[in-house]
C-alpha cells in the first residue's frame, strides 16, 4: 500500500486514493477467496509466499559459580560463554508447483565452558593463582570410604569428607560455525515432496546432511500425513585442547600404544607436529519421522508425530575429560590432619584426566504432540506442545511448552511462552571416578629379578634388570650385561604396567548435558507488521538449568547450574505482497505505476556497482528501502612492504619493528553482512541505519628461518603454538547512522551529500584464550569487530544517467572522533575517491567498471592493558594502512514488474591493481561485493 501511495510526489489525488483502496480491498478479497477455496496454505504448515528473512541474535550465558573454600560462591574469572548469530533465508516460488528455499546461518562464540568435574578439594580452577587455566591432573586425599576430605590449597587436611563438586572451567578463543542448506518442494494437488540438503562447518566439526519428506493432505484437507527420512554424516577433527593435552592421560595397551578410545573404533587420536594431538572421529545419523495433523473443528488443530534416530560412530565431546582418582591399594598411608586431628584420611589418590568415553551406538525415539486452539474472545491462539524422548543411553526426557499468541491492534502480535524440560542422567554419567588401582606402577619381573627396565632408544629391544638394588649395573635375562652406552646416555628406563581398563566403567562422561536436571525457560516474541511487505520480529528468552528443577527430584547438585538469555531481531519481507500490488495485469493502476517508473528518473533503479555505498537517494517522501549487502575480502600469498613483495629475511628483520618475528600471516578472510534500512521522511532528506555482522579468520605460519621461542612454553612460546590453528572472530560490527541530503537533481543529474556517524557497537575487546596458565592478551588489531571509536563518515556523490549509460563519482572519508578506544588505540582515518561507468547490456542488466583509490592511516596508539604477546607483523600498529588502487567489474540487474518488481541485485569484484602499504602486510587478493535491495 505504501508503494502505491508513494508514487505521487505530493498529496495523492482522489483518484489515486481510490485506486489504492481498490487494490487493497482487492488484495483482501483475493486472500479471502483463496482461504475460502482452501487454496491458501494448509492450516498445519507454513505459508507459500515468497519471502526473505534476516535475523540477528545474541546469546549470553550468566557467570558460572566455582565454589572455593568455605561456603562463599566464587565466580569464575573467565568470561561466560557468549555467541552472536545471524540467519538469512529466502523462499521463492520457482514455478507454480516448485518452491525453493535457501538458508544460511552462522554463529561465533567464545567464553569458558566446563572441561571436567572434580571434588571441590581438588582445586581444579586454582582460583587465586595468577592466570586461570584449569588444572585437571593432581592429587586428592580420600577417607576410608574413598570420599574426598576437606583440604586447603596447600594440601593440608582441614576437615572430614567434603562432597562438594565443582566444574573445572576452561576458556576458549572465538570459534565460528557456518551452515548452508537448500530445499526444493514440488507440489501436486494434495501431495508435496520436499528434498533438502546442506552442510555445516566449524573448525573441528563438519557435517553434511540430506533429507526428504512427503506431505499428503486428504479428507478435504482436514487431515495431513507426513513422513520424512534424513541422513547426516559428520566428522570430528578436533585438535585436543592444547592447554589440557599435556595433562590428558593415556590408556596404554600391552604394546605401550596409547589407546584413548578402547571402546570405540570410529575415532582415534593422532599425534601431529608441535606435540599437538588430533582426535578424529566419524559419525552417521539416520532419522525418520511420521506424523499426522488433523483439523478437529473450526478452532482447533492437533498434530502427533513419532521420530526415531539411529546414530553410530564417535559421539563424545573431544574437549571433555573425566577425572579419575587412582587409589593404589598397596600404598601405606596416610595419617593425620594438621588442621583437624580427628579428620583422618586414608588414601592419597593420583588424579588423572581421561578423555570421556561414550557408546558408539545411540537409538533415540521421540513422541511429539502439538495442539493449537483459537480463542474467540480475544482472537488469540493457544499452543500447547509436549515431547517425550527416550534413548538407549538411559535418558528419558519430557518437554512441555505453552504459548499464547495474542494479536493486538495496529498489526502487533505478542506471544509469551513458557517451557519446562526435564531429563534423567545417562547410565554412564558420572561426575568423577574413583578406581582401586594405580594409574601406572613399575613392572616387576614375575621371576623375582625385581623391576623391569628397557632401553629408551630401542623400546622394542630386550628388557633387562638391575643386578642388585642400587648397584647401577644391569643385565639381560640371560645374564649378559647391557652395553655401557645405554647407561651413559641415560636411556635406562623402567617399564610400567598400565592401568587395568576393566576396572574402569566401559563408558563414562561428566558432561552436564548428560546429567539429571531440569530447565525452565520463558520468553516473549513480538511481531509488528510494518507494511504488507515488511514485518519485524523480536524474540527474548531466559533459560535456567538446575539440578533441582529435575522432575521428581534427584538431579545433579547446584554446582552445575547455569542460565542464559537470548535476544534476537528479525526482518521478514513478503515479496508476494509487492507482486500482488504491482504485478497483476488486472490492476490498471499498477500498470501505470510501472510506466511511471520507466519514463521518469527514479534513483532507485540506478545501475550503480554493488560495492558502492550511499549511491542513491529515495525519490519520494515516505519511501522505504531495505537492502542486504555482503562483502568478502581475501588476503593471501606474499607479504608486502611498500609497493614490493617482502622476502622472509626482510620480514624477520624489519616486520616486527626490530623485535623478533615468530610467525607471519598466510591467509586472512573477512565476511561482512550489512543491512541497509533507508527511509525518506522528506524528499530532500533520507535517513539510513546500517547494522552489520562480521566474521574473520586468519592463519599464520613461521617464515623460514624464524627464531624459536625465547621463553620455551612461556607467553611467546604459547602464543606461537596457539597460532598453529586459525584464529577466528565474529559478531555484530559497528552500526552506521546516516543522513543523506539532496543537493542537485534534474532529469539526468543528481548530487547528494551524506553525513554519517559510526556507533562503536562492534567488540574491540576480543582476547585469545589463556594458554598454559598464561595470558596471551588481545587478538590481532584487524580481527576486532569494530573501530571502538565514534567515527564521522561524510561523503559526496554525483551521478549522471542517460538512456543506456550512467557514470558517477564519489568522495568519502572516515574521521575517528576519539583519539583512542577503550582498549587504547584508534584505527587510522580514511579517504576514498571512486569513479564508475556503467552500461546497459540487455534489458534489465548492466555492466560496470570502476576505479577506487583509498588512503588509510596506520593505527594510532596500541593496546594499553593486557599487553598482547606480539608474535608477528599483524601485532604491530605501524603495519596497517597505506595507499590502495583497485579496479571493480560489476553486474547489476533491476527487476521491473512481476513479483520481484523494485528488486535490485548486483555483484562486483574489486581487483587490487597497485598499492603502497605501511610497513609489512599480507597481500590483498581482492574483494567481492554482492547487494540486494528492494524499495517499497
Amino acid at each position: 500500500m505504501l508503494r502505491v501511495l508513494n508514487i505521487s510526489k505530493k498529496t495523492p489525488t482522489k483518484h489515486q486514493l481510490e485506486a489504492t483502496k481498490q487494490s487493497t480491498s482487492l488484495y483482501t478479497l483475493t486472500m479471502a477467496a483463496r482461504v475460502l477455496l482452501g487454496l491458501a496454505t494448509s492450516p498445519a504448515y507454513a505459508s507459500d509466499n515468497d519471502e526473505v528473512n534476516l535475523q540477528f541474535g545474541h546469546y549470553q550465558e550468566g557467570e558460572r559459580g566455582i565454589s572455593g573454600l568455605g561456603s562463599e560462591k566464587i565466580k569464575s574469572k573467565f568470561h561466560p560463554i557468549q555467541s552472536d548469530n545471524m540467519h538469512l533465508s529466502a523462499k521463492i516460488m520457482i514455478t507454480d508447483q516448485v518452491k525453493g528455499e535457501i538458508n544460511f546461518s552462522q554463529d561465533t562464540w567464545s567464553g569458558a565452558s566446563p572441561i571436567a568435574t572434580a571434588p571441590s578439594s581438588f582445586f581444579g580452577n586454582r582460583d587465586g593463582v595468577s592466570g586461570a587455566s584449569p588444572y585437571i591432573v593432581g592429587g586428592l586425599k580420600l577417607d576410608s570410604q574413598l570420599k574426598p576430605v576437606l583440604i586447603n590449597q596447600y594440601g593440608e587436611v582441614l576437615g572430614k569428607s567434603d562432597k562438594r563438586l565443582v566444574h573445572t572451567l576452561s576458556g576458549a578463543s572465538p570459534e565460528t560455525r557456518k551452515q548452508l542448506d537448500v530445499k526444493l518442494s514440488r507440489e501436486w494437488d494434495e501431495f508435496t515432496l520436499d528434498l533438502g540438503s546442506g552442510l555445516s562447518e566449524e573448525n573441528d566439526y563438519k557435517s553434511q546432511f540430506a533429507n526428504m519428506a512427503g506431505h499428503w493432505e486428504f479428507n478435504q484437507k482436514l487431515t495431513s500425513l507426513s513422513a520424512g527420512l534424513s541422513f547426516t554424516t559428520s566428522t570430528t577433527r578436533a585438535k585436543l585442547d592444547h592447554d589440557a593435552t599435556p595433562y590428558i592421560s593415556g590408556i596404554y595397551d600391552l604394546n605401550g600404544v596409547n589407546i584413548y578410545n578402547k571402546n570405540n573404533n570410529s575415532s582415534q587420536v593422532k599425534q601431529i607436529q608441535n606435540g599437538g594431538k588430533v582426535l578424529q572421529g566419524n559419525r552417521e545419523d539416520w532419522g525418520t519421522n511420521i506424523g499426522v495433523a488433523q483439523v478437529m473443528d473450526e478452532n482447533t488443530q492437533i498434530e502427533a508425530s513419532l521420530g526415531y534416530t539411529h546414530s553410530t560412530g564417535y559421539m563424545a565431546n573431544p574437549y571433555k575429560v573425566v577425572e579419575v582418582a587412582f587409589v593404589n591399594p598397596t600404598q601405606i598411608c596416610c595419617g593425620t590432619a594438621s588442621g583437624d586431628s580427628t579428620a583422618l584420611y586414608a588414601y592419597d589418590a593420583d588424579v588423572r584426566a581421561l578423555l570421556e568415553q561414550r557408546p558408539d551406538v545411540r537409538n533415540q525415539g521421540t513422541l511429539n504432540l502439538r495442539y493449537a486452539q483459537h480463542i474467540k474472545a480475544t482472537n488469540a491462539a493457544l499452543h500447547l506442545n509436549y515431547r517425550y524422548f527416550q534413548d538407549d543411553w538411559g535418558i528419558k526426557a519430557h518437554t512441555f511448552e505453552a504459548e499464547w499468541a495474542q494479536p493486538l491492534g495496529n498489526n502487533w502480535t505478542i506471544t509469551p511462552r513458557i517451557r519446562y524440560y526435564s531429563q534423567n542422567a545417562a547410565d554412564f554419567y558420572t561426575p568423577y571416578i574413583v578406581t582401586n588401582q594405580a594409574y601406572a606402577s613399575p613392572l616387576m619381573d614375575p621371576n623375582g629379578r625385581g623391576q623391569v627396565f628397557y632401553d629408551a632408544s630401542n623400546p622394542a629391544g630386550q628388557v633387562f634388570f638391575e643386578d642388585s638394588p642400587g648397584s647401577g649395573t644391569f643385565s639381560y635375562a640371560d645374564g649378559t650385561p647391557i652395553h655401557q652406552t645405554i647407561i651413559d646416555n641415560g636411556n635406562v628406563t623402567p617399564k610400567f604396567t598400565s592401568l587395568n581398563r576393566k576396572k574402569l566403567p566401559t563408558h563414562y562422561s561428566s558432561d552436564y548435558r548428560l546429567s539429571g536436571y531440569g530447565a525452565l525457560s520463558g520468553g516473549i516474541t513480538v511481531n509488528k507488521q510494518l507494511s504488507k511487505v515488511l514485518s519485524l520480529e523480536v524474540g527474548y528468552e531466559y533459560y535456567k538449568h538446575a539440578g533441582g528443577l529435575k522432575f521428581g527430584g534427584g538431579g545433579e547438585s547446584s554446582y552445575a547450574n547455569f542460565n542464559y538469555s537470548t535476544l534476537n531481531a528479525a526482518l521478514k519481507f513478503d515479496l508476494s505482497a509487492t507482486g500482488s500490488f504491482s504485478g497483476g495485469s488486472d490492476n490498471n493502476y499498477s500498470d501505470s505505476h510501472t510506466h511511471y517508473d520507466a519514463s521518469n528518473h527514479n534513483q532507485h533503479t540506478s545501475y550503480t556497482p554493488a560495492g558502492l555505498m550511499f549511491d542513491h537517494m529515495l525519490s519520494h517522501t515516505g519511501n522505504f528501502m531495505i537492502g542486504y549487502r555482503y562483502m568478502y575480502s581475501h588476503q593471501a600469498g606474499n607479504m608486502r612492504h611498500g609497493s614490493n613483495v617482502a622476502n622472509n629475511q626482510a620480514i624477520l628483520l624489519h616486520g616486527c619493528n626490530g623485535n623478533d618475528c615468530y610467525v607471519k600471516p598466510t591467509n586472512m578472510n573477512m565476511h561482512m553482512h550489512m543491512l541497509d534500512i533507508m527511509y525518506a521522511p522528506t524528499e530532500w532528506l533520507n535517513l539510513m541505519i546500517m547494522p552489520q555482522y562480521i566474521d574473520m579468520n586468519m592463519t599464520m605460519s613461521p617464515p623460514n628461518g624464524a627464531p624459536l621461542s625465547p621463553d620455551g612454553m612461556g607467553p611467546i612460546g604459547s602464543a606461537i603454538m596457539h597460532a598453529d590453528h586459525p584464529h577466528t572472530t565474529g559478531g555484530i560490527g559497528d552500526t552506521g547512522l546516516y543522513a543523506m541530503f539532496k543537493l542537485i537533481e534534474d532529469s539526468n543529474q543528481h548530487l547528494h551529500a551524506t553525513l554519517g556517524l559510526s556507533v562503536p557497537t562492534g567488540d574491540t575487546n576480543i582476547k585469545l584464550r589463556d594458554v598454559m596458565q598464561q595470558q596471551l592478551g588481545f587478538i590481532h588489531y584487524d580481527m576486532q569487530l569494530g573501530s571502538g571509536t565514534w567515527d564521522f563518515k561524510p561523503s559526496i556523490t554525483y551521478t549522471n544517467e542517460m538512456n543506456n549509460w550512467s557514470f558517477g563519482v564519489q568522495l568519502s572519508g572516515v574521521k575517528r572522533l576519539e583519539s583512542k578506544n577503550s582498549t587504547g588505540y584508534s584505527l587510522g582515518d580514511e579517504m576514498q575517491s571512486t569513479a564508475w561507468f556503467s552500461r546497459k547490456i540487455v534489458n534489465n542488466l548492466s555492466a560496470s567498471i570502476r576505479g577506487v583509490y583509498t588512503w588509510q592511516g596506520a593505527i594510532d596508539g596500541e593496546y594499553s592493558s593486557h599487553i598482547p604477546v606480539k608474535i608477528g607483523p599483524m601485532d604491530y600498529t605501524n603495519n596497517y594502512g597505506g595507499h590502495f588502487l583497485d579496479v571493480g567489474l560489476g553486474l547489476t540487474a533491476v527487476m521491473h514488474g512481476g513479483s520481484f518488481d523494485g528488486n535490485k541485485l548486483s555483484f562486483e569484484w574489486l581487483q587490487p591493481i597497485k598499492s603502497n602499504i605501511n610497513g609489512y602486510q599480507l597481500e590483498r587478493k581482492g574483494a567481492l561485493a554482492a547487494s540486494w535491495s528492494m524499495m517499497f
Partner: protein
Amino acid sequence: MKNYKHINMMLLVTICLALSNCTTVEPWQRGNLAKPHMALDPNPLQSSLRTHLYNSREAASGGSSTNGGGCGCY
C-alpha cells in the same frame, strides 16, 4: 451381546474421533485456522533458533523433525 455392541460403538467413536472423519469443517469455516498465529509453529524463525540452542544444551536433541547438522557445541 449388548455389551459388545457398546464396545463396538465406543471403538467406532474413538476411531472417528481419532481420524476426525466425523467432524466436517467446511472451507468457509476455516478462517480462524488460516490465521498465521494459529499455525502449529507460529514463529518458525524463533523456534529454529531456540531449537538450535536447546540441541546444544540438552541431551534430548535427536529424533525431532528438524533436520540439521553441525554441533555449535559451545
